[in-house]
């Protein structure tokens, strides 16, 4: 039983690490700040959740504390990203030139 849980934990940890890698690639490849933010926030949040859950499966007694950390990150990472995106918008960082619509500034295409 512990063997199976151990291998399952390894699988989750590996998936989490892969999602971190995808987030970093997105950080490099996406065209503008807001798209980059989407890529990195989503993938690293699920990455942390999967990574810590996998570590918890390896030793079940650690599970509660690891889940507390994961839950904290899942609750706060989107809040931080939202605050940062809004601050960047108000700071004057433009959307990507091929963006189709910007309702936040009254429906006009950004100029």
């Amino acid at each position, binding site marked *: 039983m512990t063997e199976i849980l151990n291998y399952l934990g390894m699988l989750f940890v590996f998936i989490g690490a892969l999602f971190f890698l995808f987030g970093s690639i997105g950080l490099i490849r996406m065209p503008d700040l807001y798209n980059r933010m989407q890529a990195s926030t989503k993938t690293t949040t699920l990455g942390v959740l999967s990574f810590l859950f996998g570590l918890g499966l390896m030793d079940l007694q650690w599970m509660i504390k690891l889940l507390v950390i994961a839950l904290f990150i899942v609750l706060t990472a989107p809040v931080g990203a939202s605050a*940062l995106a809004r601050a960047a918008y108000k700071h004057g960082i433009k959307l990507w030139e091929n963006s189709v619509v910007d309702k936040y500034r009254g429906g006009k295409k950004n100029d």
Partner: protein
Amino acid sequence: MNLYFFYLIISILALAIALSAYRLIKGPSSADRAVALDALTNITTALLALIAVISARFIYLDVALVYAILAFIGVIAIARYLEGGI
């Protein structure tokens, strides 16, 4: 507890950290750097938890927890600064 497995995980995380650090250095704006920093702190939290598991010290998990809390406060502070709040 397979040592080679941990080598694999740590090398993937190192690659992710290197790519994020590239964005952190290159910019171009300060908000881009803040986003890269946010991603880096998430990866670092996971890495701290991994170190706790490898060295089998439960108390090290508290370091990861406090680091996550401080990182969140840091991101909010940067956001407030960019918005002109402080």
